[in-house]
């Protein structure tokens, strides 16, 4: 289907003749590209829908009946209930707020420090071992400490997200800044560009693709860590919804929470991909 060549073999006596003609793709490249895009987008939606349909089918047929795995329709109707009584919107807003504030604080701090540390070899030697050691500490493990210092309020949870994002973005930014090719820096020096001009016109754009990758990974980790924090130290949020539903023995609500958390992760990642496309147009 994607091949550029369609060949027809016709017997001519004992020999065969190969005829090479333009494929459908070559004859109408725009229509081909359109159909291809449609197919790709369609598959991206159809596969998860298909999996849900199989789940529903199995449940309806009584094959996989279990109180712990409610069928999709039942989860959807519980979703409706939670929306109607306002619990759902409150949970989503509470989690999204913590993620957004923590992510913004951690990422901005990491970007500033990352560019400063990455572009100075001495700062790198001084700080890299410490940063590497702190990075490997599972951030959820210091939640009790944060709770002790900052209490049960929002601060401790936002800080937890901020710390998680901070180290991921910091390490990626330092590496990408330190890895900027000296060829480009030589060009700046040979043109007598100022320190700020080199930073803004050379180091930042050269380091941007990899830095943005770090920011995307951090967004996913922010979602993971906030759910963990909300399990133990919150009275609102999607993590709390899941945990509380377990306590109450309502698996439908648990699934509503789980699916919503994963949707938030998907949306955050998509937003950052959009940002990447916007900020690095030369990479297309």
């Amino acid at each position: 289907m994607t091949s550029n060549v369609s060949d027809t073999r016709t017997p001519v006596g004992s020999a065969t003749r190969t005829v090479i003609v333009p494929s459908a793709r070559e004859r109408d490249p725009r229509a081909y590209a359109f159909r291809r895009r449609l197919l790709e987008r369609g598959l991206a939606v159809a596969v998860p829908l298909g999996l849900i349909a199989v789940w529903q089918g199995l449940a309806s047929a009584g094959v996989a009946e279990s109180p712990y795995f409610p069928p999709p329709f039942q989860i959807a109707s519980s979703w409706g209930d939670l929306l109607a009584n306002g619990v759902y919107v409150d949970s989503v807003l509470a989690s999204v707020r913590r993620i957004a504030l923590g992510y913004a604080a951690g990422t901005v701090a990491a970007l500033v420090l990352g560019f400063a540390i990455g572009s100075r070899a001495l700062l790198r030697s001084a700080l890299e071992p410490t940063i590497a050691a702190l990075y490997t500490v599972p951030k959820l493990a210091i939640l009790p400490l944060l709770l002790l210092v900052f209490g049960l309020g929002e601060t401790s949870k936002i800080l937890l997200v901020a710390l998680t994002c901070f180290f991921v973005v910091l390490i990626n930014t330092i590496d990408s800044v330190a890895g900027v090719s000296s060829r480009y820096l030589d060009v700046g020096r040979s043109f007598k560009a100022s320190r700020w001009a080199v930073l803004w016109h050379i180091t930042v754009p050269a380091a941007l693709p990899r830095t943005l990758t770090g920011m995307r990974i951090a967004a996913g980790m922010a979602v993971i860590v906030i759910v963990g924090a909300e399990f133990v130290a919150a009275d609102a949020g999607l993590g709390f919804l899941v945990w509380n539903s377990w306590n109450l023995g309502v698996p439908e609500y648990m699934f509503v929470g789980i699916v919503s958390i994963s949707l938030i992760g998907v949306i955050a990642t998509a937003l950052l991909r959009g940002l990447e496309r916007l900020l690095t147009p030369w990479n297309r």
Partner: protein
Amino acid sequence: MGHDEQVKVSVQAVGKVFSSKAGRVEALSRISLDVRDGEFLCLLGPSGCGKTTLLRVMAELESPSSGRIEMRHDDPGRPLSAVVFQDYSVFPWKTIRDNVVFPLLQNGFRRREAREVAGHWLAQLDLTGFENSYPDTVSGGMKQRVAIARALALRPELLLMDEPLAALDAQLRLLLQEKLLDLWQRNQNTVVFVTHSIDEALLLGDRIAVMSARPGRIDTVIDVPFARPRDPDEIRASADFAGLRDDIWHRLRRELQAS
């Protein structure tokens, strides 16, 4: 040391040693060389002979380990030097126009002026129509022309070129040599041009400093007798050209076999 007005750059007993874990490498050994005002000087030698290092020292990108270099800066309104690098020096994140505009802005041009100057030099290098393209969407030859336009637009008193055509295929290389010859004959900057191609050095240079390998030394300096303006085809067909090429080749071959 006495200096006559004609000397633009005076390289005096310059040495350069690179030290690394692998040991000490003496890249340049007591190089002495004058670059005269307005001349096109080619540094010719086998790879690893230190010609790029010498150019980088002149560009203040490397510090010499010994000796000194004196450069005369006549017009404070123009930069002393600009470098055309070998390859991959055009910024992929800037459009072709912005690649040329950026150094101009660093050298005191206002944005509007800089855009006009950039447009002029892009036209000189046949890049009109590609101003808004990103470098990775055009060919290697075009990228290298951007690098040349970027340096020429600054109107440096001294143009330092580090094998600017080395990464191009043979035909494209001939075309760009002719372009460079044409541009230089109209602008007459002082040029130091690093190359490993004998033909290129003979076609473009007024003088050729032939270097020997490890540690880099100036083996001999050859005056190129061809009158200007030069016609590339005529020069390549001449008997002098063949004779000089042979002469230089034998020197280089001795060097290569000795090392």
